[in-house]
């Protein structure tokens, strides 16, 4: 089983599947339809797993926005990712990017869109799209679709808004195959981890790693809820202080 590449990648995770099929829909769209897809959800839902897998699978250009970015910052970063020396003006750089997207036919993934959505830099994304009609995956937090509504002309170029989903129990099982290597996490403990992590892929990973570490130390092969006892699991909340 471990030799099967599917089991050693993030491909089977729900959100990875959602992201990749969203971008595929944009790539295979009919020419009359827009080509930008917005993929959004709370932090910890495995959006960066999704972005990474999608970028690797499609050989997409990937950039992550910073809060300090202006139009120029965005353009220079995309060009750097393409391996192209940036021209001097915003206008020329937008052209350089559009041309490369048209020629290479590779999609563009823009992560942390929230950082630029309140600024004019968001218009540059639209300009690049207009100049290239390239397929794009725009990733951001839960409120991204609402924030994008303000930019009416942008909104109309979006093919689909895809919400990331909370991790399912199947996702937890797959993560346990990936992260709890060498041990068996029993179903009851896994269910508990799934419950306590409240849909967050990241928290499930942290917890599984904790279980694996403890299991190594204690020399356990199988960890059930009972073996685990009342050891702590990571909930993502600030620790409570116990006062007498």
């Amino acid at each position, binding site marked *: 089983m471990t030799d099967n590449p599917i089991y050693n*990648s993030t491909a089977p995770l729900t959100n990875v599947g959602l992201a990749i099929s969203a971008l595929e829909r944009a790539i295979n769209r009919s020419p009359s339809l827009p080509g930008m897809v917005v993929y959004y959800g709370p932090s910890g839902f495995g959006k*960066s797993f999704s972005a990474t897998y999608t*970028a690797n699978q499609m050989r997409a*250009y990937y950039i*992550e926005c910073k809060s300090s970015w202006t139009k120029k910052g965005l353009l220079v970063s995309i060009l750097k990712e393409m391996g192209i020396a940036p021209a001097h003006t915003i206008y020329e750089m937008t052209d350089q990017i559009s041309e490369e997207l048209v020629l290479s036919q590779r999609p563009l993934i823009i992560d942390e869109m929230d950082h630029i959505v309140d600024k004019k830099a968001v218009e540059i994304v639209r300009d690049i799209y207009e100049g290239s009609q390239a397929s794009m995956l725009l990733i951001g937090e839960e409120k991204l679709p609402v924030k994008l509504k303000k930019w009416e002309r942008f909104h109309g170029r979006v093919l689909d808004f895809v919400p990331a989903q909370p991790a399912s129990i199947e996702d937890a099982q797959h993560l346990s195959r990936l*992260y709890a*290597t060498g041990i068996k996490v029993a179903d009851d403990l896994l269910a508990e981890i799934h419950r306590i992590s409240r849909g967050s892929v990241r928290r499930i990973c942290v917890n599984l790693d904790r279980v694996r570490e403890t299991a190594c130390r204690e020399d356990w092969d199988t960890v059930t809820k009972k073996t685990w006892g009342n050891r702590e699991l990571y909930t993502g909340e600030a620790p409570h202080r116990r006062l007498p």
Partner: protein
Amino acid sequence: MTEVKPAKGMGRKPAHIGHYGTQDAIWQTIREMECFTIKDLICRVDQRLKVNDLTVKSYVQRLERGGYLDRIDVGQRAGARQEHAYTLIRNTGVEAPRLRRDGTPTAQGKGREQLWRTIKILREFDWRDLSIAASTEKCPVAEGTAKAYCVILAQAGYLAVVRPSRPGTRARYKLIGSKNTGPRPPQVQKLKQLYDPNLDKVVWSQAERQGGDQ
């Protein structure tokens, strides 16, 4: 760029004076010229980089077989060999197509490319995270490969060690912001050195450190 042309049969050429740089130089020249004869192309490539004529011819042949170039015969002078003119018909952007002899794309270097892309996306990771996130169905990345790459990138100062390894816990690494040098993965070369094709520079070598002259 060193202008060394290793003689044939002298072992594998280090990547930075071998295939990678030369194909890029030829491809960029072709994109500029669009229409050319081999002779013109060799001349123009030569201004950019010292490249063996046969390397140019072989890459042009691969591109033609792969459907990137169209070939037509041009006027033949008495006694001279038939000349061909090529036209670029499939311009796929700055990245030079990596092709086999028969013109089909090669998957060589794909794993390394995925590792480097994943490092830039995740920013902070251990080698297991990296191997899992960098793997696709078509091209899985082994844990050992991910681990070895982390170690050498850390030695070269590309990755900072956020948390050293302890028994039962893997070391955690972080990509140093200024070391996000570009799209092409730094290559581990024989003789234990790291070459960054984005900078066209050997950025770390074990020999240098041992010699202590820098």
